[in-house]
């Protein structure tokens, strides 16, 4: 350290108080009982990212000194709070304290001896989970969004989403959920890829015609993002397998093409208390909503019975504009991510409809039916008809 540095330190010491690690530990323990917004002491780690990753004090906020002036007011908006700063040895935190004083913080404190001394005194520290360099690059645009950030990205990586169907809705949804880093994606689909699918089912391609869709989906997803584990189920969802298959997932994305599966899924999801992100498409129009068990309506609240075959377009090869399931499937993926991260207002109790020709979105209000046979007060979701005869003919997607 040169003379000028020593002078800066001397000036800083004049205006900034220093606490020893055990004083800091005691002060933190004393306020431990208070609610977070009532706590008077904020602990800020001003070291570099790599140092933080090797271990930090539990409850500390990380604001590297290089970004201190730019980020501290967002991290600690209340300037009347006591801000305890620490670095590795107590020098950078002292200078950071002088900066905070200049910025109007009433009581910046520097922890003498820094994290090294804290650790050396046997005080507790945690080692944060870290992203690989490849992950930090891949998800960098997520990390920049405060509502996602590193913790949100870890949540996504730890999340498990089940897609019912790797078709028109499942394709865009799976593709983007995989890109977003949803760590486990289950796909149930018993069909094989056909040429007529390729107009909209973008997970598949011409070379894969004849392969199982679930397997084709796996190949596409794994090529996009090696972080994602794909679990395939080459079977049809029915009463015998639904409980077993959905048990392992956090959110279910319903992209099926028939009523029986929607009713089977609804009832099983109620029993297992799993949210279902529901979507459907027909020609130029699509709709979606989120069925969150017992917080909003369920599918049977909305439609107590399926239509007769003549009015059930899924049975009749009604046709669909290829891009339409892309839009609805991506809205489903968006709702899924909101549910996984616990952010925003999920489409619970609201049915969003999209009319591509008119270029119009609308929203209808849905209500939970108190007499719903599945989720009502006296409902029995385990014991309801699933209308398997409505689409007795297998549907060709």
């Amino acid at each position, binding site marked *: 350290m040169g003379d000028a540095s020593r002078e800066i330190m001397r000036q800083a010491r004049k205006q900034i108080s220093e606490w020893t690690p055990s004083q800091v530990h005691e002060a933190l323990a004393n306020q431990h009982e208070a609610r977070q917004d009532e706590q008077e002491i904020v602990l800020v780690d001003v070291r570099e990212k790599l140092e933080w990753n090797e271990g930090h004090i539990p409850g500390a906020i990380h604001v590297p000194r290089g970004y201190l002036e730019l980020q501290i007011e967002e991290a600690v908006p209340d300037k009347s709070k006591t801000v305890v700063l620490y670095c590795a040895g107590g020098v950078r935190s002292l200078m950071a304290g002088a900066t905070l004083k200049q910025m109007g913080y009433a009581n910046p404190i520097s922890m003498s001896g820094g994290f090294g001394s804290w650790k050396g005194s046997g005080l507790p520290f945690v080692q944060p989970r870290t992203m690989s360099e490849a992950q930090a690059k891949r998800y960098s645009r997520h990390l920049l969004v405060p509502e996602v950030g590193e913790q949100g990205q870890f949540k996504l990586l730890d999340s498990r989403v089940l897609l019912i169907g790797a078709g028109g809705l499942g394709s865009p949804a799976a593709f983007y959920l995989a890109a977003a880093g949803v760590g486990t994606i289950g796909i149930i689909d018993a069909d094989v890829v056909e040429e007529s699918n390729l107009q909209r089912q973008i997970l598949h391609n011409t070379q894969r015609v004849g392969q199982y869709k679930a397997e084709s989906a796996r190949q596409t997803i794994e090529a996009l993002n090696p972080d994602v584990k794909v679990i395939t189920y080459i079977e049809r969802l029915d009463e015998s397998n639904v409980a077993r298959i959905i048990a392992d997932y956090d959110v279910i994305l319903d992209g099926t093409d028939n009523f029986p599966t929607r009713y089977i899924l609804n009832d099983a999801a109620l029993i297992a208390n799993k949210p279902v992100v529901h979507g459907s498409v027909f020609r130029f129009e699509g709709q979606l909503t989120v069925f969150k068990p017992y917080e909003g309506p369920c599918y049977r609240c909305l439609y107590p019975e399926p239509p007769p075959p003549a*009015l059930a377009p899924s049975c009749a090869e009604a046709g669909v504009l290829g891009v339409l399931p892309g839009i609805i499937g991506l809205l489903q993926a968006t709702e899924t991510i909101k549910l996984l991260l616990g952010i925003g207002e999920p489409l619970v109790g609201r049915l969003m409809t999209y009319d591509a020709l008119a270029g119009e979105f609308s929203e209808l209000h849905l*209500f939970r039916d108190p007499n719903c046979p599945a989720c009502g007060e006296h409902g029995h979701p385990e014991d309801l008809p699933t209308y398997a005869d409505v689409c007795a003919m297998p549907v060709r997607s």
Partner: protein
Amino acid sequence: MATVRLAPVLRSSVGGSKQVTAQGDNLTEILADLYQRFPALKEQIQPEESLSRFINVYVNDQDVRYLQGLETSVGPNDTVILLPAMAGGR
């Protein structure tokens, strides 16, 4: 005259229109006017006394089951939406 918007599967019953107008002060009257002009709609929407259980009817954006059902009043500037269950996802 109230506006009535129909889901795609119902449009063939009204000559392909997405939207028609209908007269009446409540839902029963509106639907009666529609059935008179487009008889095929009745079988789909109200084959018997009550509304079909697979079709939801909204006045503006509210489900009439949670308003006054068939007695729900409908003004000339209101929009009635007829929306059957849709299953297609593939």
